[in-house]
């Protein structure tokens, strides 16, 4: 089981802030492909990977990051703090 969190317009397009899933995906990219194939709202949110950022266990990471042992991933647009 893995927790997936969504923020900003990614959260809005998917329609929920977080969910817990069972997945066999090996990487973040695989998980994104799996979700996009499953439902249109994911496909819409994940259409342009260059507009997305990912954190793995609360550290900025990339789409090739393996999911083995990971408890929480987050997918969101580029950050706009400060």
């Amino acid at each position, binding site marked *: 089981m893995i927790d997936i969190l969504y*923020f900003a*317009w990614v959260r809005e397009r998917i329609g929920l802030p977080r969910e817990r899933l069972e997945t066999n995906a090996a990487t973040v990219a695989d998980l994104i492909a799996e979700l996009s194939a499953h439902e249109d709202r994911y496909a819409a949110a994940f259409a342009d990977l260059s507009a997305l950022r990912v954190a793995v266990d609360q550290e*900025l990471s990339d789409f090739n990051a393996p999911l083995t042992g990971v408890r929480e991933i*987050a997918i969101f647009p580029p*950050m*706009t*703090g*400060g």
Partner: protein
Amino acid sequence: MRIIVQPDPFDMGAEATAFTATAKGAGAIVTFTGITRDNAAGDLQAMEIEHYPGMTERALNDMAHQAMTRWQLIDCLVIHRHGRLLPNDPIMMVATAARHRADAFAAAEFLMDYLKSRAPFWKREITASGTDWVAPRDEDEAALKRW
């Protein structure tokens, strides 16, 4: 080193005074304060800031530790609000204390550049005509390259 993430307003002047009072041996104090500006159309009603609780604190802590290591800093402070902000509200603040000004300035700019593009905050503008997520500025990503 203090990292504060809160919805409540803060008093930048009082924070600057308190930070300076405890920075023993400092000759140079730099502060940066970010203010909610009106938008181009001049009809901003509020700014909403979403963040990623847990990761936010980790990211800010990590940046502050990096700043303390890379420059000769005596202390540093990061305050960042989330939730609903009104025009002219302070959004966030960074303060650095060092013996000499070059370290205090460089560390404050480093913290700001990282905070803009690497801390999990997302801004949204609320206007009469709706809400808009703020797009990242190319200059902000480019600014990271100098460190």
